[in-house]
């Protein structure tokens, strides 16, 4: 038992009836780490989270927490916290009673409960409204209550299901900062599920990108953002121009195209973000189909023999009008090298 493999999923297989949702997943999480399970809906991220909490019984594999096998430990004995996407506050109890619910089950003394509830609510910034019912709170406030309710239990792992998705843009930023602060202050190991790459990049220490029930890539936000390992991840983190490689050449709608530079031999594909495409000069030709002003930059959609290309240039650079011919290049040194397509 050590801090490096605090929570360990080994060959975890999860199924609903005969449909396999997660297939032999292996994942090791360090104590105090903030992990994001990232992927589109149906990728198995929520299922994985439910299995960790014990709400879903695995079809195979093992889950160990802090050196103890918890695969078949009932959910109410795992000492894990979960903040539901819907918050799942108890509608018949007020804020204070909601947060005190788990502490009362622990049979703590009432003075201790009072102390912890107060500290928990103040940690999430809810020093008022203690006697309000959940229905009388805003979405953001409800989420704070849900967070406090889990935190006061001092869970071994705190899981969060799409923690920011129900909040508006301003609250989202506020809550994101809040979550990071809470994690720093409490040191709790956090695993959160999200379909939003920005959320994962901004919050997590490490990101687990999932697709069809398997891990597609596991890495720090920088690694996932800059060096996606597959076409799926590249697409997910905003590489708009993705091409397979064959015999060191780009495979395009117009046949194999040699590159202006050399590509790494083990690469299966190359991907360029729109801002990595250089416009105005280069070996490829195309027609500007659309131009859109996006604040600091201008976005271009280019129709070329290679296929549709998305490019982005500084807004202060000269404009290429829609309909005009344009030369562009896909510089290999600015491409992300994909190991799998």
């Amino acid at each position, binding site marked *: 038992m050590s801090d490096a493999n605090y929570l360990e999923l080994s060959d975890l297989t999860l199924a609903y009836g005969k449909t396999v949702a997660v297939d032999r997943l292996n994942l090791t999480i360090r104590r105090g780490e903030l992990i994001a399970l990232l992927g589109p809906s149906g990728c198995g991220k929520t299922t994985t989270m439910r299995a960790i*909490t*014990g*709400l879903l019984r695995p079809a195979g594999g093992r889950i160990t927490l802090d050196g103890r096998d918890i695969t078949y430990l009932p*959910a*109410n*004995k*795992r*000492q*894990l*916290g*979960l903040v*539901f996407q*819907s918050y*799942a*506050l*108890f*509608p*018949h109890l007020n804020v204070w009673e909601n947060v005190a*619910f*788990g502490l009362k*089950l*622990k049979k703590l003394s009432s003075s201790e409960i009072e102390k912890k509830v107060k500290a928990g609510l103040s940690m999430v910034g809810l020093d008022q409204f203690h006697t309000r019912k959940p229905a009388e709170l805003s979405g953001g406030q409800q989420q704070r209550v*849900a967070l406090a*309710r*889990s935190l006061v*239990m001092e869970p071994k792992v705190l899981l969060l299901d799409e923690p920011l998705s129900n909040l508006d843009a301003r609250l989202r930023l506020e809550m994101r900062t809040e979550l990071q602060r809470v994690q720093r202050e409490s040191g709790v190991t956090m695993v959160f599920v999200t379909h939003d790459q920005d959320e994962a990049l901004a919050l997590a220490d490490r990101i687990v990108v999932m697709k069809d029930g398997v891990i597609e890539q596991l890495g720090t936000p920088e690694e996932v953002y800059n060096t996606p390992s597959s076409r799926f991840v590249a697409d997910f983190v905003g590489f708009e121009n993705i091409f397979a490689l064959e015999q060191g050449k780009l495979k395009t709608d117009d046949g194999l195209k040699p590159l202006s530079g050399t590509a790494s031999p083990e690469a299966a594909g190359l991907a360029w973000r729109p801002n990595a495409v250089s416009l105005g000069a280069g070996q490829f030709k195309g027609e500007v189909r659309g131009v859109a002003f996006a604040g600091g930059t201008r976005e271009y959609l280019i129709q070329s023999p290679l296929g549709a290309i998305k490019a982005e240039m500084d807004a202060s650079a000269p404009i290429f009008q829609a309909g005009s011919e344009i030369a562009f290049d896909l510089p290999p040194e600015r491409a992300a090298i994909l190991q799998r397509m």
Partner: protein
Amino acid sequence: MSSRIFSYATLSVVLLFLLGPFVIIVAAALSAGETLAFPPQGLSLKWVIKVFEVESFRASFALSMFLAIFGTLAALVLGVPVAYAASRYKLPFGETIRTIVSAPIIVPGIIVGLALLRYLVLPLDVSVGLALFIAHTALILPYAVRVVSASLDNLRSDIEEAAVLLGSSRIATFFRIVLPNIQNGILAAFILGFVTSFNQVPVSLFLSGPGVRTLPIDMIWYMEITYDPSVAALAALLAFLSISIVFLAERFLGFSRYV
């Protein structure tokens, strides 16, 4: 225009049929005469007072109250778990179970009463009181399941998972989280069951014996012997009792949401 007159006419006829008997009974109850008649011969409260003096009315009222209260409670004890299981789990034969549970609504009460008499009371020598209790419980069960199901369907199930993750067992979660949130539905089911049981005639008709009669049956029996307005007075009192229960339930629970 003519269609409008037609709808008003229809409405008036419907109201007449619904409220007319009630008005007649109340009027007959306040009669000063010696026989059940409408229009009443003069006004007096003497038959209302007489109701409370008839020995058999008191006994049958007690029996009806007992059946309505404890029959409904028994139906809830059986029905709430059924409703819970049906709403939270995918049961094998779920549809079949639902049909069986609601059978007492479909099968005519006369048949239920006759069957219980013929195959339970007579051959097995089960007391009439017990048979009545079983019959009323079975009759109320479908209402209990239906009304409680409606409020369970409106309750999110993730709050139960939240409670479990906070350390509560499944059973404790049911009592701490589910019950408090469906208590209005249960109360509504209780009231509906109570009124249904109290007004039950066909089943109870077969299940009566010496000294064991529910109030409605006792009223029929009384009328066959004594044709005085006290039956009308009792009927009026019962109607007012039902109306006030439902009125209070509507006021405090929003009863009509559940039924």
